[in-house]
């Protein structure tokens, strides 16, 4: 990953970067790892060490206010050893505020839709192309989730876009709820940057660590973009792997500078809005890793937050 080297080169040639977003609330310290043990008041996780080298145990206190997600609101019994968990602490950092267990997101273009009859009803199996950087995934939609998903994805056909929040199981992801609506035809391009700041939607994708997938990476040279990526509907500038973006959650005021670590070809396909706090202009500006999304105060089960984004220049 050429991040640091490129940043040094850039600073040497052009001088320090100009900032566009005011410094907001700091990001929350998030823990993302495997459950080792869980008691009534304490969760033990095995997660990458803060130094970036190796793994270590993290002990996270839980209070009565701590809520757990496991395909919906769940009790402490969902915190079983071996499961994957993301923990967001309270604002004061003294205890866990929210814990998401085995949460994943599947989004991209539908390749095929199959149906399987089961005792509980008809189970849909949707194969999704998540773009050139992520594997194809087959997600199951159980009968109890189908209605919710069809409301947002009425055209569940090959070639259509698909975005669901799912629970990871040993058989693969099981869809729980839609992650977004399918994009409507674009009437007019969304507004461009205002004083260097763009407003739109931030979503997340299932990758460990910090960073962002950016929908407009250049495909030429070593920039890391996808040659087939469509023009994103947001008016984003061209960047490269290793570029830095200023990201602020407009709903919580928390902000951070994040490295671009992947091409967000998938995000470029979506031209939807986020309505967590007010309605954003159309277009996904950035896809954050799970940890980065939660650090800025996002709820993984909600799927998006209203974001302000600026590019160092």
């Amino acid at each position, binding site marked *: 990953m050429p991040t640091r080297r490129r940043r040094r080169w850039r600073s040497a040639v052009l001088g320090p970067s100009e900032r566009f977003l005011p410094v907001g609330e700091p990001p929350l310290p998030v823990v993302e790892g495997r459950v080792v043990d869980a008691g009534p008041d304490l969760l033990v996780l095995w997660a990458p060490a803060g130094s970036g080298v190796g793994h270590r145990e993290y002990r996270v206190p839980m209070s009565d206010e701590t809520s757990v997600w496991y395909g919906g609101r769940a009790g402490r019994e969902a915190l079983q050893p071996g499961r994957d968990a993301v923990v967001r602490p309270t604002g004061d950092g003294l205890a866990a505020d929210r814990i998401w267990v085995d949460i994943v997101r599947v989004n991209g273009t539908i390749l095929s839709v199959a149906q399987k009859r089961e005792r509980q009803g008809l189970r849909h199996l949707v194969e999704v192309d998540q773009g050139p950087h992520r594997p194809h995934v087959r997600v199951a939609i159980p009968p109890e989730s189908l209605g919710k998903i069809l409301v947002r994805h009425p055209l569940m056909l090959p070639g259509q876009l698909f975005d669901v929040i799912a629970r990871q199981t040993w058989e693969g992801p099981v869809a729980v709820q839609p992650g977004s609506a399918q994009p409507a035809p674009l009437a007019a391009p969304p507004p461009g940057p205002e004083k260097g700041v763009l407003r739109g939607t931030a979503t997340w994708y299932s990758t460990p660590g910090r960073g962002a997938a950016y929908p407009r990476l250049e495909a030429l040279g070593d920039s890391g973009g996808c040659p087939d990526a469509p023009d994103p509907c947001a*008016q984003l500038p061209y960047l490269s792997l*290793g570029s830095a973006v200023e990201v602020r959650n407009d709903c919580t005021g928390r902000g951070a500078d994040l490295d671009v670590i992947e091409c967000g070809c998938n995000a470029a396909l979506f031209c939807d809005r986020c309505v967590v706090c007010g309605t954003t202009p159309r277009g996904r500006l950035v896809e954050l890793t799970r940890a980065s999304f939660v650090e800025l105060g996002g709820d993984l089960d909600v799927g998006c937050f209203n974001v302000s984004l600026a590019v160092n*220049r």
Partner: protein
Amino acid sequence: MTLVVLETQLLVVIFMFALAILGKMHAAKDGFKILALLVECVLCVLLLFSAHLLVRLATAMLLVSATWVLDEMRALRPGQGCGCFGVLSNVPVTRMTVLRTGLLGVAAAVAVPVQDTGLQVLADLPGWRSLLFVVEVGLIAALSPEISTVVRRRRVPCERRAVPLRETFTALHASEPWRRYGLSRKAAPAEVWREACWRFLVYPLADGSEVVFAVSLADGGVRAATTDEVLAAPVDEQAVLQPSNAILTRH
């Protein structure tokens, strides 16, 4: 007169193939795009130099099949461009795009019985043929979303404008910083990347160090720094931010 109309269709098809080849040559390529480029090149050359029935039939069949594929694409992949004319065709496929390809298919089918090669027809271009040619190309241009893309692109700010690498190399090789380091024009950069209105190029120097050039995509200005200056440069704040999992630790 009928013959003039038929022969003009042949010229229109050749002209559109030539434009498509030019567009694709200036775009990023993958296996399928290279194959499409090769097929179009071969057909374009054969249409110019041969009057064989098979060449004409293959051309018509290709364009008719392309019409069907585009129509399917419009319905199933609504946000995607066809790439017919390279980066200009990144705009979503519309009914107009399908209609345009369909009309070209009809033109290619109509041109099947023409006895002369494309080159012979081209030699007879002046007169009615040229007028008809201009009208038909104008009609196709009116149906093309790529034209509005070109017009819009002229107004696009540098940070969102697609700029070919060739333009960057031309600006770099003509600059004073490039001459200062005495590099050969044939030297290949070790790394090339872009951030908004700047493209960065890293070149190894004879003494083992490296030089990085920043070429402005707005005005073609060039700046340079060597490894020594790079090491002395301050690291931006985000590089020293604590990674996730660093704080909430209670033993």
